[in-house]
């Protein structure tokens, strides 16, 4: 409906509309009525969604997959020129299938969450600030996704970090919420450190390799110049490409909360629930996955890095799932589940199933957002996060219950829902993958399967504790339990539909239906990504499907049995495996370990340098000043006693002589005459004699 040229010109609208919304809400938040704030907030994201959709459609209508690419370069951003070459970057937006998909997710889910927030934040007095931050976040995320070069992506990358800091610490008057925000930002910053160093290493290696050929960090330039990495000399025995890939992966772990930099996500639940849904489930955390898929050409030539990514992904998936088992705070459970699902995405990307990774990203965005929003409306009603104070909400909140159930089934991996499609695809790709260590694929597959089982179990636990049974939170609370307003439940329903149907876009090979997403992303991923379609062992694939569904069902069954049939059973197990339970409950004491390992030494170093600066250098300076002061005092004393003494002595002598001579002046005239005569007489005698 819209030809490519006009779309290319309005590409910049996608990020700038939410920016405009943020600026308007931000500056005028005092004067605008709440309604207007909501309209500005939601409209800007919706318009961006429309532009993204038109972009998506334009891309799809371009037949030849390889030129499904719209690049709009706004202006020259950085330019430094020297004899051997130049470093120049433009502010440019790139819409290709990958970024189009991401844009749709961000703006689509974003709009729903904005709508939901209107209801959720109804009572809050600083809504203007909330919507401004949310719009600012959308802008940064879109900037990240649409950026055409790594440095601009880095701007979006840290922009999202900033907004997550602002939004987590939204209710800043509560201290540990503010601390959670700070923790998130600093951990992200550690990740960004890795990203930035990787970026620098990449640029200069290519610069030397191409002897000035490459001038900036644009993706097109990078794709062409990447083969040069192979020829670059390895550093410390490890290939440069692997170093760069690993450094970028450090950045990804920071942003997408993988081991070891995941500690900030559970605390990030301190922010309002829509924020958790939007940022810490659907969009920001997926930035790491997007980045790796965007740099797939780099990872393709760094198999070792790929293996590391896959292993970290699988381990995180399993590890986070175990912690989620024992958490009582509904949002923390979902947070750990997000970490584990992200683990799956990284596993997929690690085994070069890029399109599957994105597929899981998209489906996860739908059902995880739904889970969070459902949890939000539960919290909205019960006014507490602790699942032990909930129960039996089925009766009071039917819509929330129904939508929550669809998401619950999706995430547990029950066919034909989207969760099953994407997760099973990942497990299938892992099973067939041949990583640098033979047989590792099978081990990771097993780990993933186990994780899936745990996911099903803790989700059932969550649903049982919240919706089933009877209300634990005391009678007076029970009285005014109510279903959330329409403005909150409508997004839930839409998301429920998406979670259910979402699987359609990436059907497994066995169904002989086209894998829409994979075909759509192929130009970006190029030949690198294997999606398991080539292997036509349908039998094996069906078998694995059956196994994973079986595991999911056992998980649900166990959960049902533990928490509904015999509610006292968990108590006994907890007692018998007390040690184990406490370990899990306290998140393996990871926070405390980090505290001891990193924070305390830095603080000690800080106070040391502070004191050193005060006593050390300042001490030296003050010491030298004291010495000079002493020396000058000495000089002063010497000057005072000796020189002054002499001067005063002299003055004394003259004084005495003066006094003696004074007596001559008797005041009697005759004396004067007398001395006159004497004088004359003396003169005469003198004249006569000589």
């Amino acid at each position, binding site marked *: 409906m819209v030809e490519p040229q006009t779309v290319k010109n309005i590409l910049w609208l996608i990020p700038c509309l939410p920016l405009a919304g943020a600026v308007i809400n931000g500056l005028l938040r005092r004067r605008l009525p709440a309604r207007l704030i909501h309209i500005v907030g939601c409209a800007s994201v919706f318009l961006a969604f429309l532009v993204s959709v038109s972009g998506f459609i334009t891309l799809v209508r371009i037949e030849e997959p390889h030129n499904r690419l719209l690049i709009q370069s706004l202006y020259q951003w950085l330019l430094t020129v020297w004899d051997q070459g130049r470093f120049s970057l433009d502010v440019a937006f790139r819409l290709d299938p990958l970024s189009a998909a991401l844009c749709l997710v961000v703006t689509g889910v974003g709009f729903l969450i904005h709508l939901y927030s209107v209801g959720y934040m109804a009572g809050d007095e600083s809504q203007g600030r909330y919507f401004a931050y949310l719009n600012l976040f959308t802008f940064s995320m879109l900037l990240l996704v649409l950026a055409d070069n790594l440095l601009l992506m880095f701007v979006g990358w840290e922009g999202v970090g900033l907004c997550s800091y602002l939004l987590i610490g939204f209710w800043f008057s509560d201290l540990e919420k503010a601390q959670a925000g700070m923790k998130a930002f600093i951990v992200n910053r550690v990740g960004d450190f890795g990203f930035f160093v990787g970026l620098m290493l990449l640029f200069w290696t290519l610069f030397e390799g191409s002897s000035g050929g490459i001038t900036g960090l644009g993706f097109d330039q990078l794709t062409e110049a990447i083969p040069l990495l192979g020829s670059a000399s390895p550093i410390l025995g490890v290939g440069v490409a692997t170093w760069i890939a690993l450094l970028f992966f450090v950045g990804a772990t920071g942003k997408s909360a993988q081991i070891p930099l995941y500690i900030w996500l559970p605390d990030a639940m301190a922010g309002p629930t829509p924020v958790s849904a939007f940022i810490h489930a659907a969009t920001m955390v997926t930035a790491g996955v997007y980045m790796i898929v965007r740099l797939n050409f780099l990872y393709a030539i760094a198999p070792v890095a790929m293996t590391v990514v896959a292993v970290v992904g699988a381990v995180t998936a399993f590890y986070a799932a175990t912690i989620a088992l024992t958490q009582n705070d509904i949002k923390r459970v979902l947070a750990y589940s997000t970490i584990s699902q992200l683990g799956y995405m990284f596993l997929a990307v690690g085994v070069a199933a890029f399109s599957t990774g994105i597929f899981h990203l998209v489906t996860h965005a739908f059902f995880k957002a739904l889970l969070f929003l459902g949890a939000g409306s539960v919290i909205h009603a019960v006014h507490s996060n602790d699942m032990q104070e909930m129960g039996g909400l089925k009766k009071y909140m039917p819509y929330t219950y129904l939508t929550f159930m669809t998401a619950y089934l999706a995430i547990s991996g029950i066919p034909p829902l989207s969760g099953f499609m994407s997760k099973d695809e990942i497990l299938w790709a892992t099973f067939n993958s041949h990583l640098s260590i033979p047989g590792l694929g099978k081990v990771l597959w097993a780990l993933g399967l186990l994780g899936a089982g745990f996911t099903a179990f803790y989700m059932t636990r969550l649903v049982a504790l919240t919706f089933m049974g009877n209300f634990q939170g005391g009678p007076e609370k029970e009285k005014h339990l109510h279903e959330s307003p329409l403005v909150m439940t409508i997004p839930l329903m839409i998301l429920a539909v998406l979670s259910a149907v979402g699987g359609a876009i990436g059907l497994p090979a066995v169904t002989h239906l086209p894998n829409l997403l994979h075909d759509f992303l192929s130009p970006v991923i190029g030949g690198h990504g294997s999606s398991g379609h080539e292997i036509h062992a349908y039998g094996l694939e069906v078998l694995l499907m059956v196994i994973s569904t079986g595991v999911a069902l056992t998980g649900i069954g166990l959960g049902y049995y533990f928490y509904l049939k015999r509610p006292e059973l968990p108590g006994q197990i907890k007692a018998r495996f007390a040690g184990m339970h406490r370990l899990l409950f306290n998140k393996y004491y990871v926070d405390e370990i980090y505290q001891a390992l990193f924070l305390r030494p830095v603080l000690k170093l800080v106070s040391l340098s502070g004191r050193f600066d005060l006593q050390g250098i300042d001490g030296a300076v003050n010491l030298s000043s004291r010495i000079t002061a002493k020396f000058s005092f000495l000089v002063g004393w010497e000057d005072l006693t000796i020189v002054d003494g002499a001067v005063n002595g002299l003055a004394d002598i003259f004084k005495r002589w003066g006094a003696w001579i004074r007596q001559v002046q008797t005041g009697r005239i005759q004396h004067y005459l*007398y001395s006159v*005569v004497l004088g004359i*007489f003396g003169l005469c005698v003198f004249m006569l004699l000589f």
Partner: protein
Amino acid sequence: MKEIILNLFILLTVVPCLWVALSSNIVHAAFSLLVTLFGVAGLYVLLGADFIGVVQVIVYIGGILVLIIFGVMMTQRGKLLPLSVQLPGRFFGGLLSSIILVALILAARRSKWPAAASLGEPEPTSAAIGDLLLGKYLVAFEVASVLLLVALVGAVLIVRRSVRGE
């Protein structure tokens, strides 16, 4: 005969002069000064300076001496001041002046004055002095007159302020 008159006048000046110096009564001293001045006037006439002798008598004796005597009379309180002063005393004063006297006399007698050629008869000098005063010494004459005026005004001024007791 000339010699006798000369010696007479010399005695006439020297003896009262001694009296002026030594007498304990200031009034006697004043009057003995009168006689000395007459002696000096005589000597002037003997030396042929007739105009000066007359001026001496009129101005010096008539004017200055009268003033001095007035001064004496006005400040006389009856009590006679003892002559001796705790200055170095009369002895030192006498000793010093006599030494100077002896020196001067020796100088007067010993030095060879140019031969007094024929001492012609002294003729009247007032016309010549008049010419000199208004000729060669005109400036000195004017200055002298100014001096006298200033002295006059000064004296009057000094006395007037003190008498009115400002």
